């Protein structure tokens, strides 16, 4: 057996050392090594020591000589015994020496989590291992460690792997996770803890989304999401696709953190601490991207076949639906059904876009089963695209189609804010009348005969307490205030049709103003509370 073999690659010299290297064969080893090094002087050297059983000082000297002529020497897969020799003699200080990976089996181990790139198993009481799908995952592991470390520095509670192991033909990273229990498991086994789970889950989500990440530290999801949209071009009608792309491009760049795969298998209860795991998808971007992936995990993925969720999360579709809806409500800090639906629909648009792309890429359109599923997602996507005009959202804004059908939703949304501000009933009624008039006005005239959206923003200001309500539409420029006030002394028959509503709105509010800006009609009204 030859103790040293090797090849000169484009970017490195790869040397494999095996068996015993001692004074009997060191001269030959040295000769082989020298021939390799001479082919590419100074090129980085990678020594694979997986099969190296023993190395004597004669062997050490050969390695030291390599180091003298080649700045960059890395030795990998070193057995613990050989590593001790390298460590004792100071070699570990002179070059990168990596121990061989421990071999871990996950046969019969409990699966406790599953992410985009791997599956997490509990290997004993204190430790879990994440096994990567990709067989050549060392770089991914490195990436995940790095982002987990960054997240921890930024205050996000997470586990950082302390060891890399071999699991079958894949790599795994080992985490210490004492007595951890995923939220999926809690929801499946202790349904009475639903509300507690929602609260903890959303608190952590808000913490993630509230974390500003220094530029360049994490990948930006924006371009990725746009590329998902681009993929759909041949598969949906052109007008719908154009609208989708315009909306995706309109989502602004955002430096806040998003987890990217935030579902209940990736949130663990450890003691009384809630920890985030599976950090490889960590990124920055608008929170709608996160909500989209959450929608997929809880609903979208099981929308065609409701039994999917059971295999994935361990709880049923109804539980998933309840958890998702409650979480979204808590995240948006609202009970307003219309608000929840607005954001859900926006999340669904991105969610479906992603799933259709993924399914086509994975299974193509040949398989009957996946085609039926894709058709369902596509139908839902097109329905949503028809009545949606923007994918951004804000907690104190309601973005709805300017249609009289949505009047109740708008009033409901505004009322929520007024009630929270302890607004007297009389004033509440006055505000609602004004909101109704303005919204009906927009719904009736702004886009006719086409369709469009209206954005209603509510702000409660303190000192003095004022409700400020702003209506924005992108319809034809129109100043409803410019119209002369109707002569209310005239008889009803002689009065001009319309105009009365606006007049009432003006009357009942303390201040009302209009401006046209960037192609938008902006009407702002204020009411002292």
């Amino acid at each position, binding site marked *: 057996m030859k103790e040293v073999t090797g090849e000169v690659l484009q970017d490195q010299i790869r040397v494999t050392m095996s068996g015993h290297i001692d004074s009997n064969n060191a001269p030959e080893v040295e000769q082989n090594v*020298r021939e390799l090094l001479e082919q590419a002087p100074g090129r980085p050297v990678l020594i694979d020591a997986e099969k190296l059983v023993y190395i*004597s*000082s*004669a062997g050490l000297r050969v390695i*030291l*000589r390599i180091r*003298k002529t080649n700045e960059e020497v890395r030795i990998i897969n070193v057995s613990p015994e050989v590593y001790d*020799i390298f460590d004792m*003699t100071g070699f570990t200080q*002179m070059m990168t020496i990596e121990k061989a990976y421990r071999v871990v089996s996950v046969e019969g181990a409990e699966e406790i989590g599953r992410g985009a790139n791997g599956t997490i198993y509990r290997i004993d009481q204190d430790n879990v291992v994440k096994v990567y799908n990709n067989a050549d995952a060392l770089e991914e592991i490195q990436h995940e460690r790095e982002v987990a470390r960054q997240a921890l520095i930024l205050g996000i509670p997470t586990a950082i792997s302390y060891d890399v192991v071999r699991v079958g033909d894949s790599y795994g990273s080992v985490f210490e996770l004492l007595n951890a229990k995923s939220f999926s498991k809690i929801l499946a086994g202790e349904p009475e803890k639903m509300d507690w789970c929602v609260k903890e889950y959303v608190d952590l989500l808000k913490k993630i989304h509230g974390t500003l990440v220094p530029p360049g530290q994490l990948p930006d999801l924006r371009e990725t999401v746009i590329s998902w949209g681009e993929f759909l071009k041949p598969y949906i009608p052109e007008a719908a696709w154009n609208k989708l792309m315009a909306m995706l491009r309109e989502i602004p760049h955002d430096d806040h953190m998003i987890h990217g795969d935030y579902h209940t298998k990736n949130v663990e209860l450890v003691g009384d601490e809630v920890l985030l795991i599976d950090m490889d998808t960590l990124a920055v971007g608008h929170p709608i991207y996160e909500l989209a992936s959450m929608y997929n995990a809880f609903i979208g993925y099981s929308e065609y076949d409701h039994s999917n969720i059971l295999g994935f999360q361990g709880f049923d579709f109804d539980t998933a639906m309840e958890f998702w809806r409650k979480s979204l409500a808590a995240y948006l800090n609202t009970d307003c059904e219309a608000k929840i639906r607005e954001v859900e629909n926006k999340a669904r648009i991105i969610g479906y876009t992603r799933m259709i792309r993924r399914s086509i890429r994975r299974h193509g359109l040949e398989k009957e089963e996946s085609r039926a599923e894709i058709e369902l997602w596509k139908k839902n996507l097109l329905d949503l695209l028809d009545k949606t005009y923007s994918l951004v959202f804000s907690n104190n804004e309601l973005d709805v189609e300017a249609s009289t059908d949505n009047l109740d939703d708008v009033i409901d949304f505004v009322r929520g804010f007024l009630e929270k501000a302890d607004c007297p009933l009389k004033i509440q009624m006055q505000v609602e009348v004004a909101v109704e008039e303005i919204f009906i006005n927009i719904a009736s005239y702004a886009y006719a005969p086409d369709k469009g959206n209206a954005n209603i923003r509510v702000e409660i200001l303190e000192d003095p307490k004022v409700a400020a309500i702003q209506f924005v539409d992108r319809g034809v420029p129109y100043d409803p205030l410019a119209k002369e006030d109707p002569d209310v002394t005239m008889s009803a028959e002689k009065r001009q049709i319309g105009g009365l509503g606006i007049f009432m709105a003006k009357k009942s509010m303390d201040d009302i103003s209009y401006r046209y800006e960037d192609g938008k009609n902006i009407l702002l009204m204020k009411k002292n509370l």
Partner: protein
Amino acid sequence: MSLNVLEKADLHMHTSASDGTDSPSEIIELVKEEGIGLFSVTDHDTIQGCRMVISARSSSDPHFLTGVEFSCRDEGGKYHILGYGYDVDAGPIHELVEATHVLRLEQFGERIKAITKEYGFYFSEENLRELYSHEEPGKPHLGNMMARLGYAKSKDDAILNYLNKVKIHSKYIRPEDAIQGILRSGGIPVLAHPVYGSGEELYMGEDMEMRLRHLLELGIQGVEAYYSAFTMPMQELMLDLADKYRLYVTAGSDYHGTNKLILLGDTNLERISDAHPGFRRFLNAVSDRIY
């Protein structure tokens, strides 16, 4: 003698007089190119190379110190002992070299006997006369002859598959004999590459100290603490021991020409002025013997 302390010193290298590939006059040129201000030639068991350097060297060439490296063994193990600054005409150093030469000839004879017995190769009187006509007959000469006689495909084949396969009891002089011979020739005995034993072992920590104490009793005066194949912990260990036992310190590469990957002048000591005090004490002790 004026030594430039900003220059390098390399006191351990081999010429073609032993197992190096450069002739003594080639070594002088290489040392010059390398910017080495002080050098010594330390061939195994011979001072022939030193004699040639002394006669080939001109006054403007780098400073030179006589050297030699003896392979020794006793009950405690094997050692390589360097001798520096001896008088090339002194009797004891010649007796030492002669003793090692006789041992090697005996060993060579045993090797011929062993392969004759093991493989049935036959060497005629004339063959043997030819072999022994070499100053220092060894495996390469025997290998060449075996290839010529058709016993092996090539010299390398002969060495690898026959000569190295037979067990020969190697013969060595004892460390105390080497140390005393060096001292009586006006030289300073120094333990070569201490951490690596005779080159193939590894002694760290207390093992190293025990070994050193044994040699101290036999009269060793210095350690080669700056050595091409030493890591920082090895160097620090030897410098600490040099402090503890107040030993001389030397610096050497163990350059063998193209036979090994070692670079000439690579001693892990950039400049003489950076050296441990033990090295300056050494230079002081040999100052009147530097050419």
